[in-house]
Each structure stands twice: as C-alpha cells, then as structure tokens.
C-alpha cells in the first residue's frame, strides 16, 4: 500500500510537468486550431535557458526560472509571428507541417550550438529527503508541484477574471466577431503563445531540477505525451489539460512500477488510442449545441 501511495506521489510530480506543457498545447489549439508540434521544443529551449541562467550566470533558482519563462515567451511570440502568422489563411495542414518544421529547426539549432550530448543541470537546490512513515518525498518534488499548481492558478485567474482573458476566450470562440468588438486578435494570439511557452519553459526548468539532465531532444517525448494529456482532458479546455497531465503522469509511474518500466512510454499512446475510440472529445470535452 505504501508503495502505491509512493508511486502516486511520484506520478503527481511527473504529471504536473506534463500538465504545464499540455496547457500550452491546449491554449494554442483553442485559439488557432493548431497542434503546435514545436511546443515540446520550446520546453527544451526553456530548460536550456534555465541552464544558462543558473549555471553560466549563476542566478538564484527563482530568478533563473523567471528568466527561462520570459525568454521562452519571447521565443514563442517570434515563432508565431514569423512561422505561423503568414499562414493564417492557409489550409490547416500547412500550419501543422510548419510546426513540425519549426520543431526540427529548434532541435537542430541546439545540436549545432550546444552539441547533442546530455548535460547535467545546475543543481541550485540541495536535495533534501523527507520520510512520512515509509513514504519518501523530496524537496524537489514539493517545489515542482507547488510551482506548477501556482502557475495553473495564475493561468486560470488570467483566463477567467481578466479583460485579456475574456478577449482570449472570445477570439478562440469567434475571431470575426472578436474583431467587431475592437479586439486586436494578433495581439491576443501573441499573448497566448507567450503564456503557453512560458509555462512550457517552467516545466523544462523543473524537469532539469528533477531529472538533472537536459539535451536538445529532451522535448520530443514529453511533447508528445503532453499532447496526449491535452487530448485526454479535452483539447482546447484548460482544466482538461491539467487533469490529463496528472492522470497521464500517475498512469505512467504506476505502470512502470508495477508492470514494467520498458512499457512506460507506451502508456501514453495506449491512452491516446483508447480516448480516441471511446471519447474523442476528451474527459471534460462536450459538444455545445448551437442555436441559430
């Protein structure tokens, strides 16, 4: 029993990482109907920005985290501006292929720049281990979960309670009518990319802290899994991405603990197949009837 609780706790910390990445997928999908396959690589870029900030320039952990989030936000805005915006009126498949292209571009630029071999992530926070009965919790796990949940609350606040959040929801529902309200949809889309990218960067830094290793291809698998998490929760739905992330993280850890760790990566894709067969709109997804 302790073992199950232990694994669930581990799953929650992994799940909060997936949830943070999944939020960016779901927000961009909500507003552009685009699966931004470069999103996993923004998470990777965020990890490297954190690596430079913490290791090279010796910032403290919170400042390094904020630096990585800010840098990734700028990167997200640039990618949207130059790769996606010119294709706003193009067929959606062009946009998707472009996203894959941006993904390869980021990965290979980083290989060119820092090399393909993994690097140790600067460990600013000394590891502390707490025992609750037989259950082990580390301070890093606690930081991961706390930072993620804080960011998620912040995001929910922005989307639900602020004027710009209202504009984001309006643009995601109906761009033409949003224009009639005087909403500058280009700005709203830029902001969406900025927020989504900064959340991914936070996940990147937290993963560096947790697994202690980063490399230019580190975004591929978590990117795909976070995409599954977003679909699982209901793509386009923000609480869905969080829920999907946690479910996926816990499922993955449980499977690798009690079945076999060699199939841990398969879990996400089995879940994807099942959700597409059983409930394609996702757990929280629903079809709203439209009145005409």
């Amino acid at each position, binding site marked *: 029993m302790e073992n199950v609780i232990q694994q669930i706790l581990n799953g929650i910390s992994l799940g909060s990482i997936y949830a943070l990445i999944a939020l960016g997928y779901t927000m961009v999908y909500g507003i552009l109907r685009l699966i931004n396959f470069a999103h996993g690589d923004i998470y990777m870029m965020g990890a490297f920005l954190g690596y430079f900030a913490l290791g090279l320039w010796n910032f403290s952990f919170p400042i390094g985290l904020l630096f990585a989030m800010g840098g990734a936000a700028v990167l997200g805005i640039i990618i949207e501006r130059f790769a996606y915006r010119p294709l706003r009126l193009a067929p959606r498949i062009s946009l998707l292929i472009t996203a894959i292209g941006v993904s390869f571009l980021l990965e290979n630029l980083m290989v060119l720049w820092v090399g393909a071999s993994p690097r140790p992530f600067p460990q600013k926070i000394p590891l502390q281990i707490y025992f609750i009965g037989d259950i082990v919790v580390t301070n890093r796990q606690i930081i991961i979960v706390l930072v993620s949940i804080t960011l998620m609350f912040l995001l929910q606040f922005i989307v639900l309670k602020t004027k710009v959040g209202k*504009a984001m929801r*309006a643009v995601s*529902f109906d761009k033409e009518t*949003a224009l*009639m*309200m005087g909403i500058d949809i280009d700005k709203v889309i830029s902001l969406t990319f900025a927020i989504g990218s900064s959340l991914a960067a936070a996940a990147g830094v937290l993963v560096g802290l947790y697994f202690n290793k980063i490399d230019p291809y580190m975004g591929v698998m978590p990117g795909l899994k976070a995409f599954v998490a977003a679909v699982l929760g209901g793509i386009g739905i923000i609480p869905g991405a969080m829920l999907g992330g946690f479910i996926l993280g816990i499922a993955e850890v449980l499977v690798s603990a009690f079945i076999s760790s060699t199939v841990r990566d398969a879990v996400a894709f089995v879940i994807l197949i099942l959700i597409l067969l059983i409930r394609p709109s996702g757990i929280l997804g629903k079809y*709203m009837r439209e*009145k*005409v």
Partner: protein
Amino acid sequence: MLSVNNLHVYYGGIKALQGINFEVKEKEIVALIGANGAGKTTTLKAISRLVTLTTGDIFFYEINLKKLPPHKVSALGIAHVPEGRRVFANLTVLENLELGAYLCKDKKKIKTNLEFVFSLFPRLRERCKQLAGTLSGGEQQMLAIGRALMSDARLLLLDEPSMGLAPLLVQEIFRVLRKINEEGKTLLLVEQNANMAFSISHRVYVLETGKILMSGPSQEIARNEQVRKAYLGG
C-alpha cells in the same frame, strides 16, 4: 455621417458588390433591402472592414475606412450586430456585454451603458450570469444588440435582426431599435423582412445583385409597384 462611394467587393471571381453608392445621415434609420445574394451583408462587412474592398471608398465623417484594420473600426464609433447574432456562447451574458465595451476605459461610462442596455432588455439582467449559448434565439438577438450598444457607438450596423424570430419578438426588437434611434443613435439596417424595414426606416436602398436598384424615403419606395411585387407580396 457615413458615405459609401463606388464600392466594389469581389470574392475571387464573384462580384458581390458592383459599384454601390449610398449615404447615411446622423440620427437616421436607413434600411438596405434585397433578396438573398444581393450584397446586403457584404456591404455591412465592408464597412466593418471584415472583407477587402476591391475598389471604392467608405467615409465615416472624414475618415476613410479603406486603409483601416478591422479591429480599429469599433473605436471610431461603429458597432456591428452580425447576422445570426454571433454571441460568444462560451461566455456569460455579462461577459459578452463587457466585451462590447472592450475599448472603453471609462468604468463609469461602462456602468451607464450597461444600465441602458438592461433598461432596454430587462431579460438580460435576469440572465446575467448565464452562458450566452443557453439563451433562446430572441434573447441572443437582444444580447447581440446590447453588446453593440455597450461600445457607445454612434452608428449601429444591424444585419437581419429579425431573422428566425417569432413575430412578437420581431416587433419587440423593432420597438427597441426605434427607441435606440430616438436616443440619438444612427442605424443602418439590413433586412429580409421588408415590411418591418419599411415601417421603421426613414430611407431605403433596394439592392439587387450587387447594385442599387432604387432609393428614397421609405414611404415613397413602399408604394412603388415593382417593390411591392418583389418584396411586399403584391
């Protein structure tokens, strides 16, 4: 207030508007009537800059709208009530109204406008917290008009406000439109319901396949033999 000069709009090879001219004066209600595909909606969308003008100019006072990006039109004081209402179904009624006042920074003015909208449509006050998607068609139309009023616009573009509504509701909507006009707003109205359009408007333009067929004071046009046959059922 508004003058449209030699406006052409083509969708690819389709000529939706082929050189139309008209004007709207302050505090007027002007109706554009015509059959499906005559170019009524396109005209309103051209004013809102939601479609690209092929040639021609649209002046709002002395400002040429031709070069303006679509999100800047609302700031001038033009509000569009689109065809099919297009309320933000995923937002509450209140949030929809607040979005109407997106560019307004004066909190007091927003409050006054909100009270004005609620006085016109008390039903919206009751349903404030409800998602707009759960409203009935008539209530959604009220919300769409209310949302446009929130922007403090001087000119309202109304695209088929009577579409799909029960006759009683249509009368209710038109009663409110008349009241809005009496409050000093100018209305440019597109309608299929020609009877209603003639009864409310001061002047009418009749559109046919992208051209203006005739124009004049509503009562005069309503007596025209050709118009009676085509639009008023003999």
